[in-house]
């Protein structure tokens, strides 16, 4: 039951992009085509889940065990950065097809604050290991959902008449605001 609440809360109510503003850079920068945003969402899901598991174990068995939790920020970002490199190398060897699909998005993920944000949030919320994994997966789904919906909207925006000054990024922000407004309708669901 608890896990269902975590899932619904992370995907709809506290959507990581539209309610918590994590990962806005790729949201505005990458998501102008549905296809590329699906690729990005896949890569983020992959890294987010692995990163959350590794940082959870590090937090419990290294940082807390030795009483050096103030090193959290440095440790987590280093883990994520090296993890991204590792995932890239492994994917290249093991599954060239998947690497082709996700390849170009992987390096971008190091500076995607959603990954570090979810890792820190999972620790702050004091979930156990399974809870953290569920939390990471549902946040990744929430991220992907918002990214793909938004890309679809932007594909349509290319075809409509927009005032000259609003073209490009400004209208993207306004549309994102309206999308966030729509997601606010889920408030109270949990």
């Amino acid at each position, binding site marked *: 039951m608890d896990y269902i609440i975590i899932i619904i809360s992370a995907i709809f109510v506290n959507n990581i992009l*539209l*309610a*918590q*503003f*994590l*990962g*806005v*850079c790729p949201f*505005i*920068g990458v998501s102008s085509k549905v296809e590329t945003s699906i690729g990005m969402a896949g890569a983020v899901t992959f890294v987010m889940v692995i990163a959350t598991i590794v940082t959870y174990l590090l937090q419990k068995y290294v940082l807390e065990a030795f009483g050096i939790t*103030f*090193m*959290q*920020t*440095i440790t*987590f*970002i*280093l883990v994520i*950065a*090296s993890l991204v490199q590792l995932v890239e190398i492994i994917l290249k060897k093991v599954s060239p097809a998947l690497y082709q699909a996700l390849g170009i998005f992987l390096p971008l993920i*190091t*500076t*995607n*604050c959603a990954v*570090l*944000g979810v890792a*820190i*949030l999972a620790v*702050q919320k004091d979930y156990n290991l399974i809870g953290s994994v569920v939390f990471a997966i549902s946040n990744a789904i929430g991220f992907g959902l918002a990214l793909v919906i938004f890309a679809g909207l932007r594909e349509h925006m290319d075809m409509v008449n927009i005032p000259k*000054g*609003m073209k490009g*990024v*400004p*209208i*993207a*922000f*306004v549309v*994102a*605001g*309206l999308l*966030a*407004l729509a997601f*606010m309708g889920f408030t109270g669901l949990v």
Partner: protein
Amino acid sequence: MSQWKNFSKGIFKENAVFVLFLGLCPTLGVTSSAINGLGMGLATTFVLVMSNLVVSIVKSQIPDKVRIPSFIVIIASFVTMVELVMQAYIPALFEQLGLFIPLIVVNCLVLGRSEAFASKNSVLSSIIDGVGMGLGFSIALTILGGVREILGSGTIFGFNLHMFPVDEEGNPITMIVFVLAPGAFIALGYLIVLINKINKKNA
């Protein structure tokens, strides 16, 4: 390039938020009031100036292949310092900014300046670049925070402006959506239009 130009480019022509669209997560996430925006801006400025300084000092010692991880470690060290200092001296603001303080590490503005500017320029230029960029970032966050605070709660820096009608209990009836998530996106969208217009007129 004269040092004045180097300084002022970060505020106007290459403003991180309004022109380059860097560091958007904290820009949207913490600006529900002007004071939060200013606090976040100044914390980021400190990290930016210090990491620019250190990167420009050690740039010749770092092998090219590992420069990005090295920059991240340098930045993360200063972020940890800011975190600890804020937690000790301004716990209220620290609570408000919450998650976004550790997330300064992944603010693309900070890493971007280390990579694009500090790793190629002298120590003095790098410091000036950091101060200018940081100031531009702070100003942008304060403006966005101010706009959202005025429209959403009818106050600025906590002072009541008495510009909204009040209900029977004396609470002002404000456009509450502006302090919530959607208002951040919408307010920033229209601010960018406005800044573009001003920049175009001056150019």
